């Protein structure tokens, strides 16, 4: 499972943020995106996830291989932890949620409604969703927000297992997950030169 990005230009609100982004993620590799706030980390991840079109460039990856975890966890407050997870498992056609609950240390909370979880517990549930999708390429947007040290370490080991099984991870994060093998890509060098905005207004200057 390889993710290859070449000459990617992506924009937010019609204004190009990043251009010429290129990298290749072979199976088992992880890449951490770095850069100041607003430099386009989220935009890049959403573009690769297919949620918004790129202005130019190509994204090569097998179909239905990507799963995306954004700032919001996609949890339903009135459903229990197990129900939330079972829903995503059913949508992706994967069997069983026990392994994912176990891996993210949620087994004891399985019957609790999501609205009664703490912020860190919600985040763990959101990350457990990655496991039940059964997809090899993880796109993670600040996965460690509101996690405590122990949980960060827990997710670090989950991610390492995922990589060891041939998965890949592309994440925007400021916190070291303890993934020593992960490469770092600094997005500041891909910042789009100040120029006319693309899209709707491009034709009018």
């Amino acid at each position: 499972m390889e993710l290859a990005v070449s000459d990617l230009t992506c924009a937010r609100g019609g204004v190009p943020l990043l251009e010429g982004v290129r990298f290749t993620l072979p199976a088992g590799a992880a890449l951490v995106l770095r850069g100041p706030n607003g430099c386009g980390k989220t935009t890049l991840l959403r573009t690769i996830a297919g949620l918004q079109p790129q202005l130019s460039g190509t994204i090569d990856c097998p179909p239905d291989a990507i799963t995306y975890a954004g700032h919001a966890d996609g949890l339903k407050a009135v459903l229990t932890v197990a129900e939330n997870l079972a829903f995503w498992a059913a949508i992706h056609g994967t069997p069983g949620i026990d392994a994912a609950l176990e891996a993210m240390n949620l087994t004891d909370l399985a019957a609790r409604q999501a609205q009664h979880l703490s912020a860190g517990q919600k985040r763990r549930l959101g990350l457990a969703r990655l496991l039940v999708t059964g997809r090899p390429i993880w796109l993670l947007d600040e996965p460690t927000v509101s996690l405590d040290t122990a949980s960060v370490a827990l997710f670090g080991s989950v991610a390492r297992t995922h990589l060891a099984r041939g998965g890949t991870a592309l994440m925007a994060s400021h916190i070291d997950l303890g993934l020593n093998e992960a490469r770092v890509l600094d997005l500041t060098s891909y910042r789009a030169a100040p120029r006319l905005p693309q899209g709707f207004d491009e034709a009018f200057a």
Partner: protein
Amino acid sequence: MSNGSLWEYANPVKFMRLSGQVLPWVAGLAAACVVGGLFWGFFLTPDDFRQGSTVKIIFLHVPAALVAINAWVMMLVASLVWLIRRHHVAALAAKAAAPVGAVMTVIGLFTGAVWGQPMWGTWWVWDPRLTAFLILFLFYLGYIALWSAIEDAETAADLTAVLCLVGTVFAVLSRYAAFFWSQGLHQGASLSLQPGTRMDWAYKAPLYVCMAGFTLLFLALLLAGTRTEIRARRSRALMIRERMAA
């Protein structure tokens, strides 16, 4: 953009240049036709033997109704052009046409009411033609409301274009539903080709002039409106450029 094709004018710069040259002529011709046609129609035609002088409101009513419907058709075509070929001028032209069409719908409804009062003894009847026109006005309102509610220009253009396509289908359905719902008082189409109720040339000639005038008026307002939209976009683009350079 291929050379020599019609699509060249989808380029905003070329559009601005051409429309700037054409607009005064269109506007002048529109004014001449509207004023001349209305004067001819109001003062130089004989009274109808049954309807008296009230019939003369036809010179406002029919052209306004014509433009009201065709403005929507033009918006439909422009929306399709935007969705398929992504020409920005098309999206902006659709946006500029909507208020003109809506006002023409109101003129059509209002003159209809003024005409209907002496003819049918009431300002408003739920006649299928009137109802269909009122429904058309509601569709214009929704379209305009959606344009003004969305901040991002490209998103707004996409969503309003989709609404225009779906709205067209439902507007046509509504028209047939309205005709099914009530058979009306409204006379048949004024220029229908069926024999018997044909209009005399004394009326037809000024009516044609008025219809041409209103169509030209629509064209002039459309060009002016589109030019305003393009200028608004351009100033926004310049502001973004300045902000990014700073």
